[in-house]
């Protein structure tokens, strides 16, 4: 049984993870039908669906902890009530941006779930182990594509590098700490965002360097925080309006 304080901290962790997945899953699904080639269109859409499935599993955990039904949580909140990082809410842009975002996010995601697989909060550890295979594939996809394009033509290399530069501070925003971070660490729920960020840097640096990409200079890093506290760009609310359009026609409908 979790203490009141730990429950609060766990809920916060679950909300931000689930919201990241829901929003990025929705964004990536916007490539369906317009992907750069048939095979990639299908692959990207399929991974977007995986993300929605993962988000659902986390909203279900929240429901078990006394929060509202997953559908209610996903479809009835407004922008300030979302805890996703700002990286995931940006419009899909050009494919290089979507791809680099996917690479940066999913590398972090796989490591996050590996850390959570050891969690003292068993329901979360179970979910983390369940999705390991999907996340491994997502990382494999992101790594392969980024390396391929970075080693492609002068243009493809330049575009991947520019997207990496653009995404970098937003991606650092993934690791925004919670005020309750220490509680999670003390209770063994997981080792926390700072540890994850360290693991992530160690994982992606050799991949990027192996294909001639450069991580921005460390003294220029300026993480974009705020998303975890409900501070979002103007891009999020229109996404939510579109995502919930059908739900709002009849919230009680059975699908």
């Amino acid at each position: 049984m979790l203490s009141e304080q730990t429950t609060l901290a766990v809920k916060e962790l679950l909300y931000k993870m689930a919201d990241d997945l829901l929003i990025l899953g929705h964004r990536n699904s916007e490539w369906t039908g317009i992907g750069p080639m048939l095979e990639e269109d299908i692959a990207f859409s399929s991974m977007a669906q995986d993300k929605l499935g993962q988000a659902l599993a986390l909203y279900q955990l929240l429901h078990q902890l006394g929060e509202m039904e997953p559908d209610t949580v996903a479809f009835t909140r407004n922008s300030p009530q979302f805890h996703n990082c700002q990286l995931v809410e940006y419009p899909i842009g050009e494919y290089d941006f979507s791809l680099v975002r996917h690479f940066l996010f999913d590398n972090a995601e796989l490591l996050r779930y590996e850390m959570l697989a050891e969690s003292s909060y068993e329901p979360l550890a179970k979910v983390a182990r369940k999705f390991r295979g999907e996340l491994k594939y997502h990382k494999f996809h992101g790594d392969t594509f980024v390396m391929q394009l970075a080693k492609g033509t002068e243009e493809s290399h330049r575009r991947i590098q520019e997207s990496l530069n653009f995404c970098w501070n937003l991606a650092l925003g993934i690791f925004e700490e919670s005020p309750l971070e220490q509680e999670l660490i003390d209770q063994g729920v997981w080792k926390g965002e700072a540890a994850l960020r360290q693991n992530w840097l160690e994982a992606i640096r050799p991949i990027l360097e192996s294909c001639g990409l450069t991580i921005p200079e460390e003294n220029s890093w300026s993480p974009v925080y705020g998303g975890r506290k409900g501070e979002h760009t103007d891009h999020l609310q229109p996404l939510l309006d579109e995502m919930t359009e059908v739900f709002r026609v009849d919230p009680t409908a059975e699908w």
Partner: protein
Amino acid sequence: MIIKSLDPRITRAEIEAEDGKNPLELKPLDHFETYEVFHQKKRGTHHVHVGTVHAPNPEMALLFGKEQFGRRGTCVNIWVARTSDLFASDYDDSDIFENTPEKLYREAAPYKVMDKINAYKAKQENNS
């Protein structure tokens, strides 16, 4: 020059190509090459051919093969092979696979199991 298309309706419309170019003529690298995908349902069983993907290299072919053909149902392993690396028999030579009637003993059909299958089929038909 009249456009020749893979779509016969366009060919029939006899459209004049712009600046004399036939759009069907592909430049090299206009398309990725194709890879044949084989998946294995269970460790120890045969890999079975399931389809084809476009990809620039084997790694990308694996990536796509997994999504196109490995995401539904069970799959534990995938092979991909460049289509151009397959050495295949010619359809004009398909008569080499024919058997003469007097060598029926070499075909699987006369084996006892066929009697059982035919009996079962007959029974199903009688029941329906």
